[in-house]
């Protein structure tokens, strides 16, 4: 179906179902229950899930397939965001030109940076991309926001003002970003028993785009091009002595993944028309690396899982405070309750980054294949299959078209 093998098609189907039903799935707890704080089914967070999912899917095309570890991918995210807001300022609040332009500009920048960075590999490539991203950040944060030539609006962030031209803004069209008249921030609320489900236009637009992006990534993974990229990762020496110049392939992968990042950046602006330079900082680049590794680099579903998990932690873990902890452990004797709260306290609330760091280290040390590998190991344990069978299984999967 759709040019996919059965297994991939099923995976795509699962992603489609999850994305479409997310408002239900992510809201398992009734509104008034104590567990409602673990609900993630509100528009803001769901949008982040899918947008950063796109970012990570794109990053995985570069890192997962070719093994080139870019530490500057956030630059493309930022470029995409700025492009989209500029379209809002110049043309009007329709998101379509903004999103298209964000893909184009980030692609152009990725091509320029890629030509230079890809002349080196390994750690040098990582540092070159990092240097480019930090440079872009510095430029956007201060240099490009002087009164004479204000491209980025510096610290305040680029946003739409009332006196912006918006040349193509139609009469009576919404005064917020919209997709053919449908306002991005419009949310349809549905109460069902004790539950409250929210259906947000912005989320669904992003989710549909995410599904398309995911589909394209499956096609790339399974294509001869993807096979070639995996070959480059596997053994660059043999690649060179096979009579192929590997650079056009890695450059293409770099540009594609840069365009994914730009698309994600454009969508961030589309759901919230404000673009700031901090989106380009190297911590943001580090985050997408974390997402991809956490989920499983080089796997199809890994980056989506990783980005979802990290964004969930960021929003939910950071909300847990001492009162919540005390209420959890209230069934224990007082001394132990306090001890438990003291022990867990550093890892939640403002300290959720600590959890993230620890989790990330554990993954890199014990589970280099990320959550996907973890899942496979558990599956293997349960089914008790022999390892040999399994490897043969996997080899068959990785072979395209039979």
């Amino acid at each position: 179906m759709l040019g996919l093998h059965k297994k991939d098609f099923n995976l795509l189907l699962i992603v489609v179902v999850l994305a479409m039903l997310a408002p239900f799935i992510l809201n398992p707890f009734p509104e008034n229950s104590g567990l409602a704080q673990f609900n993630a089914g509100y528009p803001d967070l769901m949008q982040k899930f899918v947008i950063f999912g796109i970012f990570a899917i794109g990053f995985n095309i570069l890192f997962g397939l070719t093994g080139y570890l870019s530490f500057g991918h956030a630059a493309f995210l930022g470029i995409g965001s700025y492009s989209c807001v500029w379209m809002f300022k110049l043309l009007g609040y329709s998101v379509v030109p903004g999103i298209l332009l964000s893909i184009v500009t980030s692609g152009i920048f990725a091509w320029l940076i890629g030509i230079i960075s890809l002349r080196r590999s390994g750690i040098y490539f990582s540092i070159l991309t990092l240097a480019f991203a930090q440079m872009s950040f510095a430029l956007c944060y201060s240099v490009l926001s002087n009164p004479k030539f204000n491209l980025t609006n510096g610290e305040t962030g680029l946003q739409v003002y009332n006196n912006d031209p918006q040349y193509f803004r139609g009469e009576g069209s919404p005064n917020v970003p919209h997709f053919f008249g449908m306002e991005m921030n419009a949310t349809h609320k549905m109460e069902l028993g004790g539950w409250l489900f929210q259906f947000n236009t912005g989320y669904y637009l992003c989710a549909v785009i995410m599904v398309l992006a995911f589909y394209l990534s499956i096609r790339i993974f399974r294509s001869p091009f993807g096979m070639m990229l995996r070959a480059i990762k596997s053994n660059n020496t043999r690649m060179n002595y096979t009579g192929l110049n590997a650079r056009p392939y890695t450059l293409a992968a770099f540009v594609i993944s840069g365009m994914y990042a730009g698309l994600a950046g454009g969508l961030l602006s589309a759901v919230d028309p404000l673009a700031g330079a901090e989106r380009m900082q190297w911590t943001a680049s580090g985050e997408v690396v974390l997402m991809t590794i956490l989920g499983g680099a080089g796997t199809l579903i890994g980056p989506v899982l990783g980005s979802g998990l990290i964004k969930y932690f960021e929003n939910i873990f950071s909300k847990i405070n001492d009162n919540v902890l005390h209420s959890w452990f209230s069934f224990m004797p007082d001394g132990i309750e306090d001890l438990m709260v003291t022990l867990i306290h550093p890892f939640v609330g403002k300290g959720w980054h600590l959890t993230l760091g620890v989790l990330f280290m554990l993954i890199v040390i014990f589970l280099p294949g990320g959550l996907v590998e973890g899942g496979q190991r558990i599956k293997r344990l349960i089914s008790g299959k022999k390892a040999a069978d399994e490897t043969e299984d996997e080899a068959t999967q990785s072979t395209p078209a039979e």
Partner: protein
Amino acid sequence: MDAIILQILNGLDKGSAYALIALGLTLIFGTLGVVNFAHGALFMIGAFCAVTLSKIFSLSYEVIDESQTDFLGNPLKVQTPYVEAWFGPETGAALIDWSVPLAILFSIPIMITIGFIMERGLIKHFYKRPHADQILVTFGLAIVLQEIIKYYYGANPIPTPAPDVFRGSYDFSAMLGFEPNSVIYPVWRLIYFAFSALIIGAVFAFLQFTTFGMVVRAGMADRETVGLLGINIDKRFTIMFGIAAAVAGLAGVMYAPINAPNYHMGMDFLVLSFVVVVVGGMGSLPGAVAAGFLLGILESFASTTWATTTIPGINQIIIYLVAIIILLTRPRGLMGKKGVMEE
């Protein structure tokens, strides 16, 4: 001329910090072959050693002085640091005043211990893994370390002043034969530079003149051969990791008065230090030091009004720009050895 000298001086303190961190990074990379993204965190921990010592010295108990009253008429509560009670007011006050230099002694055992634990507990298991994995795990470690510091010390910078005698600036103009007030330079920064030069000299002397250093240098050149000679190179490398950690820590301790330490200062310096290492040449110790000072001074020149009006923002991007140009024209860096991670 005086302006040029001033800019060179201005670049020295940052250059010193870059050089010291880059030196440690290179030692670790050269000996262990590991790219350590947590090295900036060691610098940061060093700075917090200074913060900690100054906090310990300022620990006080409260006495109620009946002879004085505060503005509400209640008896005045006086905070007396324990050190003043124990060692007498003068010695106590001097200890508090000199807490940053004293933190040097305090930090060395701490940093070496942290270095040992890091190497034996974590890095050791990553020698055989790809560089990408090393980057990732040390990156994770850096996040953990800085979050721990943030948890205990808060997110705000903590001002940690230098001893009284070293505060303020010194006018070098007369000494150099310029107009008065043309070359004014903070004393502590000069001390920082001298201190860095001392540390760098000590590390080089250690590598050059001791048998231990000789083996380490041989190991950096060809690990396998040295291993074949029956020398336990791993143990020495662990010690080198401790030394590199101590160097970064000391750089941090002394930097505390220049910039109030905060939990993310390590990462800010790390990104630039990596650039420094690459510009100097991966695996070259003199390269790391030279590039550190060079880039520090270059940054300071780019921050002059003349430079920023000619090319706006040049001060923000100069280091990256230089790094990109160097990497593309001289892939090995300024003093890099042939064959060390050239690809």
